[in-house]
């Protein structure tokens, strides 16, 4: 046995495999089918009415499927032909999903980069008409940071407290009805459309309580939108804190609330911070509730409680719907800033999650 060379061994293994698994396509089969399909599609493109990049790609994919399936059907039989078809379909769905992401990011980066400048980032739209060039989104950046900041100030503690109730207290309550209801409606709340939340804040706080539309009413809407996300992610983190840690703390006579504050929360901190950041990233780009609960301002307003205040999403909406060349360009610049903001939050959250996860005991 040991005298066999590597090639011979590989060959004998392949023979054995073939005997067990039946005839298979050669390894280069898929590549050959792909090359053949592409070549044929190009020929069809040049000679017949198949035209355009998209059309040719579609034809090539269909040809590839046809070649591969017939070949596999004849050599390997029906079951393997179906398997190959399914594999190709699964791979294809992934490319289909990747294409729009790449297209969106590319469009935003290409169109946005041409607008971004230090003026764009540090000036407002005060005294600049939609038609003229110049101006910037400084006022919107301030608004977004303040509104999202206030929303996080309310939403994160409320969400964490709710999660603490669900994980730490509810299992020992006399009736599980309340915690079941809370848990269920937290889930349902994630599905409430953001525009409906905007309507609620408008009807409750502006129409009924008579508050003026300001950055603050916007942040109330954002609070409601981020709450369920914070609750769910915190809950998940608290649940994986090892039971032994809590029990060790109880055994030392430490009261439950101190155990939660000093042992459970610090252990789960990384995950909780990640969840909160994802929630913030998610609401930072919300447009609809802001349109309903604020008036847009073109100049800097650093007071979220008084007067109109811009935010990045409403700035983009306003510039884009003004529909002049200059303003649409500014909208794309705003889109780039917004997407960078969201992605930085998102990436940071993922990095924190990677390095601070709860270590199972």
């Amino acid at each position, binding site marked *: 046995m040991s005298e066999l060379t590597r090639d011979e061994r590989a060959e004998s293994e392949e023979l054995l495999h073939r005997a067990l698994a039946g005839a298979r396509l050669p390894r280069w089969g898929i590549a050959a089918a792909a090359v053949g399909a592409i070549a044929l599609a190009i020929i069809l493109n040049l000679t017949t009415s198949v035209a355009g990049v998209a059309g040719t790609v579609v034809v090539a994919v269909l040809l590839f499927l046809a070649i591969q399936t017939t070949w596999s059907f004849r050599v390997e039989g029906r079951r393997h032909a179906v398997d190959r078809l399914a594999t190709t379909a699964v791979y294809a769905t992934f490319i289909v999903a990747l294409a729009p992401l790449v297209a969106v990011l590319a469009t935003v980066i290409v169109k946005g980069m041409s607008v971004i400048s230090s003026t764009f980032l540090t000036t407002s739209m005060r005294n600049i008409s939609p038609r003229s060039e110049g101006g910037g989104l400084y006022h919107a950046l301030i608004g977004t940071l303040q509104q999202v900041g206030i929303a996080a100030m309310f939403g994160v503690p409320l969400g964490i407290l709710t999660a603490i109730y669900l994980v730490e207290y509810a299992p020992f309550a006399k009736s599980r009805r309340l915690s079941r209801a809370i848990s269920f409606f937290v889930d349902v709340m994630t599905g409430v459309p953001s525009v409906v939340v905007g309507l609620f804040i408008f009807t409750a706080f502006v129409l009924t309580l008579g508050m003026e539309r300001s950055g603050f009413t916007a942040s109330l809407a954002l609070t409601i939108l981020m709450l369920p996300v914070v609750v769910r992610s915190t809950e998940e983190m608290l649940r994986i804190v090892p039971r032994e840690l809590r029990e060790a703390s109880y055994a030392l006579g430490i009261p439950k609330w101190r155990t939660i504050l000093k042992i459970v929360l610090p252990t789960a901190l990384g995950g909780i911070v990640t969840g909160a950041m994802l929630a913030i990233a998610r609401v930072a780009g919300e447009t609809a509730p802001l349109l*309903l609960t604020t008036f847009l301002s073109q100049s800097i307003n650093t007071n979220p409680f008084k007067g109109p205040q811009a935010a990045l999403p409403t700035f983009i909406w306003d510039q*884009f719907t003004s529909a002049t060349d200059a303003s649409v360009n500014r909208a794309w610049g705003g889109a780039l800033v*917004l997407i960078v903001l969201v992605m930085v939050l998102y990436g940071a959250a993922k990095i924190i999650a990677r390095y601070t996860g709860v270590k199972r005991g």
Partner: protein
Amino acid sequence: MSTQIEHPATPSPTVGIEGSAVRRGDRVFQGLSRTAGIFILVTMAAIAAFLIWKAIPSLQANTANFFTTSEWFPDQKPSVFGIAALTFGTLMTALIAMILAVPVGIGIALFIAHYAPPRLASVLGFVTDLLAAVPSIIFGMWGLQFLTPQMEGLGKWLNDYLGFIPLFRNDSGQYSKSILIASVVLAIMVLPTVSAISREVFVQVPRAHIEAALALGATRWEMVRLSVFPFARPGMISASMLGLGRALGETIAVALILSASYTINWQISEPGGNTFAANIALRWNEAGDVGLSALVASGLVLFVITLVVNMAARLIIARRSEFSGAN
């Protein structure tokens, strides 16, 4: 010295400290956290209550049937408005979006969970999550400026070759601002929802089921059909319904792509169509008192529809409460 030993609060048999020996700090902290939980229930109730209350004035002023009228002139005297066209547009866009997104979303989830090499899989999971992080207004702008010209070819093709089906016929010769384009954008936007939740269920399929199928000589696809799909079916259904909920309520992307029109047009590649959410965003600033109230009324209908869809989805996976759209 031996008489006064302070015992720590004795844990009850259930490990919790619930019981007679609860300290004040505990009571305060438990009260706080419980209040936070109740606050969520109160918020949900308040959303329903305020929408109903503020919708009533317009519904009383309305001289037309709210459910069967298509026009939207709430601020006229007499006030005439209804949600027929909005309902049609909302359901149509969401339905087409789901037809496009569900197979692709499940395919992505399958790819990440069972086809891609593990190292690649985590990267790919991150990439699809990124798709979820792109704000909807950016999808709207992209849909209008980038996707619309690309979709013209598809619209023409559908009209030329499948035009005998009324759905695909296009008599106007214009292909922008259509329900079809809005649906494609919506489909892209709900993809992460569908795929993330399906993926969570797919990776929980017991290893033994998978290996049993493979050991019996199943091909990979047969393994998926025999062990993955049966296990994951409830999860897949609820993933689709949560995606549907998102598609129904999406506002800004649709508002940018569609223009506010109030006709029921079955020819989906023609300009036209409107949805509840988009209509609210588009009509908000020009609405008078009755107009605002009418928009609140339409928002109430949207709220009820999404609530029903979401609750149904949650009940289907009630036994698997760990699958949630929020994480």
